[in-house]
């Protein structure tokens, strides 16, 4: 007799013992289950109380079950309150929504838990909620979804539009998709079932990489809500435009600003054929066909509104033994540049299969493939914006004959318009492929009840292939006043070289994992235990080849290019890690919850001595509302207190720092015209180098009152970040010639709170929900290894100076975001004012100060401006406060949701100087701002009307002293914006039934609809979400979307 039969018999015996009820009389009952609004609920679990006899409702909410006489049926469904009802022949059950969602299953590290039994701070976001507006990647959709999550967009350039995501203002969090470390680019938002954000010790289970919090993304799987297949199509069509962009002023204002107010040479402002007189203006008018208004280079390079389309089709369901989710997606995102010159496309497919192989054995087979293609003109964003910002409105962006590339008239005149055109500058193609396969087998151990063993193997390969074709293109000056056509266009110079560069970067990752779980309960005591062993090995191979001067761009391949300048390179690297994870959850009476985890991590980045790290955590929950003294209090639906403490790590800080020896350099040195190789000493090594340690403590209180009238969740946390690597300042001086190796010496911390409120209600036929959130987080240097100036053994004046310096700039004990600078009090408006100024502003008797420089306040009154006069002028670019509110309302077939989101407690720095680079500025101040705030020179050379910006009273002058950090340039900012507005309409059921559809929804969604901020003179020119580098990056975008969602 084989073992299979033994187990089968044992199982039958057990089943027999458990189902002794079967011998009693049987009744067939049937019925339907629906929600409060009468919609049928499929997948409701219906169990005869006290037995294992049960079923689930089908797609139309119908069910049928054989039960004993007088049986009680339990109806349970996630998101609804479990109901009991006496069995009757025909039942119509209405399920009531569970306002505190206690039964909801939340994904946590290596498993799931019911919300009621959570002991850590975990925010859970459903896939449906984030998909209210389309976005090219998931990172953009997380904004305003969870308290304590800070999300900021930097650029709207397709392919480069990932938002910066921070949990509680820590560094970049670990992102895990279906158990594997991934990026937001590797998951289609439509495929997401839910997202969990582990904000406290709940992340500890991810050990050495979890120190900054963890975002878990789980994709959809085959449903267990009845059999059959549900197809969903979601298609959107969006029109998008830039939120803000700095405008150029008209030619007239431009020349006035430059020539009259700024005293700049006309020659710098005008093309050679155009002088500032009526005769020449007429030439201009004839050439351009318009009055002397000039052109805004942005109008030429940007399209006003462009299209994005997204399509996703998925099938989800279950047959006898197989559950499946299959999805195919396509996204086409246009930029504001011409479509021919910039396209970004993504194709993705995903298959998640669950199979029941036999009674004890189930398998999961998952596969996903992404292909992202960016195909654009060969331009560098920074160079492009430099030229765009410096393009003069007096110069023509396009000549009558467009085959001649124009120039901007500025110092580096490569026309931005021709930079972003493939036919001139060449092209860049990036193709990213990501292929993942995972297979796992779960064995439900029959002889140990509650134990499951899962073995799984994940494999992933990612290839980034990049090819750039660079074309040399000539630029021309244009002078229509010249007689012959050959002279009208004069070759000015060329941009770039003819060259081809191809590289491929290939990663391969292998991740085997063995998991054992054990669940048991004895009456009031429930125990869940987990053990995981896993390892990762990772290999990366980078290969590059380049040549110049292809024979023809018709055949733009390396092997048809010149051998005169060829180059190639290979870089290989590998890494590996190994981990063991354990967790025990215990609950008593469903009231007292304990959880303990332990993880051991080892990585090849560190020496044997520093390799293993151990990361424990402990957490506790008390469901006060389950206690007898509160159970009958009708106001409280739920009240829970939580506390957690955990230790985590951040191991991405060092790579083979423990080894000594010699590095082989990539470069070379020439002797007699031949390249000779270079090796250099790797420097001193620290054999004990190891990861950063993060200790986080969190206390939380959550509750629901008055049947959803008020829900709240408040968490307060403190995180200590120890063992930060730095080169010790004590020890060896610079003349030693080598720095000490980095050592785990520094400590920082973070503190803050997250608060989420929720109000649900109904006014007439309108049900609504308001969900505000606010969070605050800020960090300090706890102990920082730094140079402290001596206060002993020096003369008393020096000692006093040094003490002040230390108290002010020594980091230990200070907030980590302080920005020091000078307070200002207007500008110098005349040379006589400078001459009589009582304070030495430049340490050279004001010899270098010019009219228009900022006047710095001499805080200590010592008659000289130096560091002692600095004060705190800002708080850095990371917002300390994040706030948002979701409002959702539903009325019949209509629903509206709106997300307001904003931040404050940060500063935006507008450039290092109050003046600007002449008029061909590529500094932070747009000409529009400069013009609106210009100063006007009086007859005697003094400035009579001084608003904000000083004149550059010298050609292209930068007032050197005004370059210092100051409160004039740094704005303490806040903003509030309507991030998302979604209005959707469900086509009435009577219509969809006729069409044979289950649901047909039309929606209109807006993104970045309206914004309020305090950027003052910069309002409407720059996005307040972006805190720096305004002039050199592609702006953020706003969009309006129409969408169609069909279930059938």
């Amino acid at each position, binding site marked *: 007799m084989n073992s299979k039969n033994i187990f089968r018999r044992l199982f039958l015996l057990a089943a027999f013992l458990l189902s002794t009820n079967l011998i009693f009389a049987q009744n067939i009952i049937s019925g339907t289950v629906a929600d409060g609004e009468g919609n049928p609920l499929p997948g409701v679990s219906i169990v005869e109380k006290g037995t294992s006899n049960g079923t689930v409702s089908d797609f139309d909410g119908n069910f049928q079950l054989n039960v004993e006489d007088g049986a009680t049926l339990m109806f349970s469904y996630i998101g609804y309150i479990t109901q009991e009802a006496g069995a009757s022949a025909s039942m119509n059950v209405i399920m009531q929504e569970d306002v505190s969602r206690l039964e909801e299953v939340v994904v946590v590290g290596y498993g799931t838990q019911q919300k009621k039994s959570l002991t850590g701070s975990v925010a859970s976001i459903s896939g449906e909620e984030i998909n209210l507006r389309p976005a090219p990647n998931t990172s953009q959709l997380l904004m305003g979804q969870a308290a304590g999550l800070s999300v900021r967009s930097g650029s709207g350039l397709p392919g480069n539009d990932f938002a910066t995501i921070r949990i509680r203002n820590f560094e970049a969090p670990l992102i895990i998709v279906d158990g594997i470390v991934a990026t937001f680019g590797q998951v289609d938002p439509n495929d997401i079932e839910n997202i969990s954000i582990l904000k406290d010790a709940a992340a500890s289970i991810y050990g050495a990489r979890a120190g900054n919090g963890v975002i878990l993304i789980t994709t959809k799987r085959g449903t267990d809500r009845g059999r059959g297949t549900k197809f969903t199509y979601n298609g959107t069509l969006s029109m998008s435009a830039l939120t803000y962009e700095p405008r150029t002023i008209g030619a007239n204002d431009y020349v006035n600003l430059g020539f009259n107010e700024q005293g700049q040479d006309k020659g710098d402002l005008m093309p050679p054929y155009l002088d500032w007189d009526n005769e020449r203006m007429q030439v201009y008018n004839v050439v351009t066909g318009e009055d002397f208004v000039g052109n805004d280079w942005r109008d030429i390079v940007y399209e006003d509104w462009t299209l994005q389309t997204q399509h996703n089709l998925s099938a989800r369901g279950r047959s006898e033994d197989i559950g499946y989710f299959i999805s195919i997606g396509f996204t086409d995102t246009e930029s504001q540049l011409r479509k021919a010159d910039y396209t970004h496309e993504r194709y993705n497919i995903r298959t998640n299969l669950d199979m029941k192989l036999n009674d004890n054995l189930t398998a999961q087979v998952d596969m996903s493939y992404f292909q992202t293609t960016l195909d654009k003109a060969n331009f560098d964003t920074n160079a492009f914006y430099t030229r765009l910002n410096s393009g003069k409105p007096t110069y023509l962006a396009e000549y009558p004959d467009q085959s001649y590339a124009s120039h901007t008239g500025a110092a580096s005149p490569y026309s931005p318009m021709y930079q972003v055109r493939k036919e001139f500058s060449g092209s860049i193609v990036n193709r990213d492929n990501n292929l993942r396969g995972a297979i796992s087998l779960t064995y439900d151990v029959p002889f140990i009840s509650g134990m499951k063993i899962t073995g799984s193997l994940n494999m992933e390969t990612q290839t980034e292939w990049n090819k750039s074709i660079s074309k040399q293109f000539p630029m021309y000056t244009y002078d229509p006043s010249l007689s012959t056509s050959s002279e009208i266009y004069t070759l000015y110079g060329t941009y770039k070289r003819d060259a081809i560069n191809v590289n491929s970067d290939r990663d391969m990752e292998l991740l085997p994992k063995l998991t054992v779980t054990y669940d048991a309960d004895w009456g009031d005591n429930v125990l869940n235990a987990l053990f995981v062993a896993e390892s990762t090995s990772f290999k990366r191979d980078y290969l590059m080849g380049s040549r110049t001067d292809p024979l023809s761009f018709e055949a733009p391949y390396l092997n048809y290019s010149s051998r005169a300048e060829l180059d190639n390179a290979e870089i290989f690297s590998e890494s590996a890690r190994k981990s063991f994870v354990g967790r025990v959850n215990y609950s008593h009476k469903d009231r007292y919850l304990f959880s303990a985890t332990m993880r051991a991590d080892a990585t090849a980045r560190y020496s044997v001595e520093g390799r293993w790290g151990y990361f424990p955590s402990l957490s506790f929950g008390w469901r006060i509302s389950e206690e007898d003294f509160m159970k009958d209090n009708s106001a409280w639906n739920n009240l829970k207190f939580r506390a957690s403490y955990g230790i985590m790590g951040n191991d991405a800080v060092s790579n083979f720092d423990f080894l000594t020896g010699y590095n082989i350099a990539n470069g070379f*040195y020439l002797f007699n015209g031949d390249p000779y190789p270079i090796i250099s000493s790797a420097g001193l090594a620290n054999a004990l180098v190891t990861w950063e340690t993060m200790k986080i403590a969190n206390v939380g209180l959550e509750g629901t009152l008055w049947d959803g009238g008020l829900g709240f969740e408040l968490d307060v946390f403190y995180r200590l970040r120890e063992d930060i690597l730095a080169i010790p300042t004590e020890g060896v001086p610079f003349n030693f010639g080598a720095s000490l190796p980095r050592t785990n010496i520094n400590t920082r911390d973070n503190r803050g709170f997250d608060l989420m409120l929720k109000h649900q209600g109904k006014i007439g036929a309108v049900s609504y929900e308001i969900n505000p959130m606010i969070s605050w987080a800020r960090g300090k240097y706890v102990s920082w290894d730094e140079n402290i100036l001596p206060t002993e053994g020096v003369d008393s004046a020096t000692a006093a100076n040094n003490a002040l310096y230390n108290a002010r700039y020594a980091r230990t004990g200070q907030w980590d975001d302080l920005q020091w600078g000078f307070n200002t009090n207007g500008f110098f408006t005349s040379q006589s004012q400078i001459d009589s100024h009582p304070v030495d502003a430049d340490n050279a008797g004001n010899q270098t100060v010019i009219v228009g420089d900022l006047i710095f306040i001499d805080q200590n009154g010592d008659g000289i401006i130096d560091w002692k006069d600095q004060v705190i002028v800002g708080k850095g670019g990371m917002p300390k406060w994040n706030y948002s509110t979701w409002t959702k309302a539903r009325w019949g077939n209509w629903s509206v949701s709106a997300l307001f989101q904003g931040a404050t407690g940060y500063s935006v720095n507008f450039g290092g100087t109050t003046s600007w680079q002449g008029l061909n500025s590529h500094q932070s101040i747009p000409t529009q701002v400069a013009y609106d705030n210009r100063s006007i020179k009086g007859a005697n050379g003094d400035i009579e009307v001084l608003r904000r910006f000083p004149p550059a009273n010298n050609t292209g002058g930068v007032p050197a002293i005004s370059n210092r950090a100051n409160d004039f340039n740094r704005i303490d900012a806040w903003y509030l914006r309507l991030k998302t507005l979604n209005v959707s309409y469900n086509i009435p059921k009577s219509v969809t039934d006729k069409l044979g559809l289950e649901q047909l929804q039309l929606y209109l969604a807006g993104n970045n609809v309206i914004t309020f901020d305090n950027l003052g003179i910069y309002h409407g020119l720059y996005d307040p979400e972006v805190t720096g580098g305004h002039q050199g990056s592609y702006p953020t975008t706003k969009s309006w979307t129409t969408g169609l969602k069909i279930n059938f």
Partner: protein
Amino acid sequence: MNTINKLLYFFLPMMLLVGCADLDLQPTNMIGEDAVKNDPKLVEAFLTKIYHNTGWETNDQAGKRDGAGTNNTHWRFVDWVVGGEGTLMAPWQEAVKASTAIPTNGGARTSLNYWPYANIRSANEILQILSEATFDPETIKVQSAEAKFMRAFMYLELAKRYGGVPIELVPKQLDASYDELMTPRSTLQATYDQILADCDAAIADLPGTAMSGKATKWAAHALKSRAALYAARIAKYHPQSSDGLTSIPASMANGYYTMSHASASAIIDSGKHPLHTGGGTYQKTYSEVLTKKGNSESIFVVEYDLGLGKTHMHGYFLMPDGFKSGWGSNAHIYEHSVERFDYKDGTPGNKNRGLFNNKAWFDIEEVVYKRDPRYLAKAWTPEEVYAGRSVWYHDRSAGAGTLKGRGGDVVPNRAPSRNRNRGGRLAQNRVPLDGSYEFIPYDGDDSDFVVFRTGEMYLNAAEAAFEIGKPVRAKQLVNAIRNRVGMPAKQVIDLAKIKNERFCELFGENHHLWDLKTWRDAEAELHMRTKWGVKWTRRKSDGMYKARRWKWNFSQNTAFLPKMYWLPIGTAKLADNPNLVENPGY
């Protein structure tokens, strides 16, 4: 047991796979320590690293590519601008900022600083490795001498900036005592003596010829000649400081001048590196000194090669508007620099200043093209013909007419904006006159950088000879230099004439700033000096010009205070090593 077996087949390999991940990985770009000690090829590669990192063009790193695809810092012409020879296109360029900033105790601008102690340590490590090495003694001897040559070069670069500096001659270990680690500054005299001692060792052991780019006996002589000259000038012209950190006893001057003269003369007399001649015209000959690879005058160079991807950007920045690939016309020569170049007939360089009144029409052939050929080689001039086209400067045209330019090409109404709007004089250093740079790519210049050349040695020797009372020798040397470019011989010699000859011969070669500092002439030459440029007007009918001088606004306010003869050590370094003393005035 079938099922169990089947399951084991699956789970066991999984456990093995988890267990098998190899954590003992090695990085792929490293070589073990011991391998290097006994392999002359690896020592050579380590030595090459010192060549690579020394920064022979310390303040003049014009966006170099080094073959590894990395661009170095974008500093260019810093010495040139700070030394007041000319200025750059825009005030935000690092060199202009460096020239206007007054250093504080926070330290000088990064582009002026030079702290090569890491590379000095490498040289010391090599010397230690070689002292224990067992391979070919001749190789050991030469490699040691190269390390000492480079160490001396780096200490000279330090001494000319900061005065006396901490001297490290062995790679110290971490277990050294506090006092041993916190090396105080040596006196300036001791610093120069260390430099000269290393030079002597290098002179003794280096071969007379080596691959281009490698140190030779003659390179070591050249370094010694320059170092000893600086030391002598400081001794003679700088006031004494109480601690000797920024001064050298005046009594030492004679000895140093003698050493400088001896080393320079050794090179001149050896005949191994005669002055370059034979370029056809004086102008072309002189231009080839910097642009023709492997010319006889090159004593020590840094090599570049476009094909191998090691390039710099001088040509790209220096090509005039109208030729360039998009930048160009970046370096503008001040009028006071132009006027230091005499006319070919020996008449003074400033004799035509009165003509620049925006009224008088003159012939550029007389006013511009009769100047010293060295000026014509190192400056772009109005209507200079390059690659068959003219370089235009005129801000506007007057009258009517169609007379073509010197290049036979059609004349535009106005010159390209960057030529007419700025100084009206553009530097042409290191751009060959053969027209080959017509459209130079972005970073495609591969002319070699000349670190030491014989021309400097003639002038070092001349100045030293004059200072030790050998004016006849001095005059001979100066006239040899003048003779090479066809300038008439000087009949009498004095220090001012030698200084002017040095200015003209070495214009744009990163010498003038340090000459001014060591002569203690910088306050007189640089402090708040009015700087002039020129605006040109061309008459269409006959190609005559008129011109006016105008003030260079953004460079007006350059201060040179007495403390600026020495750059500050800076608070960061003082905190690092409490035994250090800051330079006076900071």
